[in-house]
Each structure stands twice: as C-alpha cells, then as structure tokens.
C-alpha cells in the first residue's frame, strides 16, 4: 500500500526540495516581518507590544500542529507496521519543540508589560509547558534507546499520552478561569481581531510552517542517508 514511500524515491525529492522551500521561506518571512513590525497598526490598548503576538501565536499553533501530526503518523506507523512514518515523526519533532519554546518565551516577554508578571501557573501556560516536556521526552527517547523496535513503541506511547494534552491546551481558556485571554480567532464565528492585524498573523504562520518544513526536509534527508549508508534498501 505504501509503495510510494520507498526511501529511494523519496530521497530524490527530499535531497532537492529543501532549496526551494528555503527560497520560499525567505520571501514569506520578509513580507511577514515587514507587515508585523512596520505596516500593521499598534493596538488601542497594548500599543506596540501587540507585535509580539505575531510571533507568539503562530509559534504556538505550529507547535500544537506538529505534535498532532507526530501522534497521527506514529499511530499510522503502529497500525500498519510501517517504519517510515516513525522516521517522518522523528524528523518533525525538533522544529515543534523549538516553536513551543518560542511561544513560551515570547508569551513571557509579552506578559510582563501587559499582565504585570513574567509567569503565571494558569491552565493555558502550564499545559503549554507540559507539551514542551512531552516534546523533550519524545526526542530524548529517540536518542537513548538503541533497540529499534523498542524506540518505536516508547515514542508512540509518549505521543499518545501527550496528545491528550493538546485539546486541554486549546480549551483551557474556555473551561477554566485563566489569566491568558480566550482565543481571538474563531473559524465558525466572527474573530475579535481586526483584519489589519489578522493579515500579518496569517503571513507569519505561513512563514513558520515553511520553516518547519525546511527543518523537516533536512532532518528527514539525513535519516534517509543514514539508512542508505547502512546498505538497507527498505526501512
């Protein structure tokens, strides 16, 4: 069924694709930063510190998205016993962790002038920190377990446990009283963010997604080279 995922064939694509993704990323991040830092208006209440949001929110979205993808791919890999899916998950994880940390740090920087504190143990922030710990566990598991069969099992268990946290992060602001504000962007109802601020936010999200794609392609390429060097035709 997954003939298309044979390493030889993918390698032809991954060994070249990252150049084009890099090119696209540079263009999109330039437009995004210009929009976010210069052309977008300041907020009526927060002033210029609203600009932190253009990094904070996309980073949080991407880190949640990547964790969900990792879990999904690991489960597909487990159900169909295809190791390639685990390799894709492994290559996705580092950029997810990076964006998770970016979201926590920028949130902290924004929190000081807005809320008056660097850190609060409210449900949203704490659950986001837990997600970072799950990312860390996942990546460490890949490093320390030598046995291939074992590492696939352990990383899958980590993703299954961690994915429960993802809806908790999303709905924490609705379920409980938190210091963190509820979501401004709703797909079904009207967003409470002005369109002049929504536009740079979308561009920055695209830029971060491209960056994740870039890191993923590089990582995945390395994994494929490792397999080639071992002289294995299939995963």
């Amino acid at each position, binding site marked *: 069924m997954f003939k298309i995922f044979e390493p030889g064939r993918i390698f032809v694509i991954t060994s070249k694709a990252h150049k084009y993704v890099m090119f696209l990323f540079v263009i999109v991040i330039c437009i995004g930063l210009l929009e976010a830092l210069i052309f977008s208006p300041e*907020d009526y209440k927060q002033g210029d510190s609203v600009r932190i949001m253009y990094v904070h929110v996309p980073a949080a979205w991407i880190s949640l998205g990547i964790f969900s993808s990792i879990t999904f791919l690991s489960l597909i890999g487990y159900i*169909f016993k295809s190791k390639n899916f685990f390799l894709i998950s492994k290559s996705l994880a580092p950029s997810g962790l990076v964006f998770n940390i970016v979201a926590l740090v920028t949130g902290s920087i924004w929190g000081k002038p807005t809320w008056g*504190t660097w850190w609060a143990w409210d449900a949203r922030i704490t659950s986001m920190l837990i997600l970072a710990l799950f990312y860390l566990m996942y990546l460490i598991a890949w490093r320390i377990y030598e046995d291939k069969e074992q590492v696939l099992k352990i990383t899958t268990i980590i993703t*299954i446990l961690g994915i429960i946290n993802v809806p908790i992060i999303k709905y924490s602001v609705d379920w409980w009283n938190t210091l963190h504000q509820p979501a*401004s962007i709703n797909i079904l109802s009207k967003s*409470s*963010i*002005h369109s002049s601020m929504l536009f740079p936010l979308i561009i920055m999200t695209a830029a971060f997604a491209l960056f994740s794609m870039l890191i993923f392609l590089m990582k995945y390429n390395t994994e494929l080279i490792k397999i080639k060097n071992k002289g294995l035709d299939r995963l």
Partner: protein
Amino acid sequence: MYGRKVKLRFFFIIFVFLTLILSVFLVLKSLEENVVYFKSPSDVKLIKELENKKIRVGGMVKKNSIEMSSDELNFIITDFKNEIYVTYSGVVPNLFSEGKGVVAEGYLKDRSFFNASKILAKHDENYMPPEVKEALGEK
C-alpha cells in the same frame, strides 16, 4: 481489505484513547478547584469557611470605582452579579483600568472585602488599532 492484525491494532488504539480521555476527564474534574487561576466574586460568596490562605480573585474593574489616595488604591471587582471591594497599595500594571479585566492576589477579610498584595491586568481577546476603537466609541 486489511489484515486482521491491522484491524485489531486499530481498535486497540481507539480503546486506549477512550480510556485515557475518560481518566483525564475525571482527574481534571476532581481537580477543578486547583486548576482555576482565580475565583470570581460569585465564587467567593459561595466559600463556606474563610481560611487565612492566599487566593486570587478576578473579574472586571467596576466603572468609576477606582479611588486613589496617597498610599492606597481602592476599587471594586465585579462579575456583573456580585462585587468585591479591594484595597491595595503598590504599583499596578499599565493595562489596569476601569472596565477592564483584573486579577488580584491576596487575602480575604470577609466575603466582600479583599486585601490585595499583587495586581495583575487581564487582557481580553480584542485586538484593534486605536482608530477603530475610536470609531466604535463614537457609535
């Protein structure tokens, strides 16, 4: 189409998920008291026994309720059902203002008086440029 083992593994995963979701739900339900970052004035009214413990109270700063004297700040936190009087001395965050969200940390004197030792401003989910805010205000 797929082998028996594939189906088995699929249903096993579904089962694992259902179990996990149920257990996490029950754990969070029983921990609700501790998961909330602050209590609303209505929650405070429902406290059975007043303990001398640090708590957080949050809500809106009532319009025209801020009174500043040389060393003290008084205001009212409301959730539009119940109110609580807050006294505080110290610096407030820039975004602290009337009609906006606030979280106060400190000790309860009784169910409607609160001694705050720290004030945090709670930002809402509205983002807009100043011109739009003015236009909305004129309406």
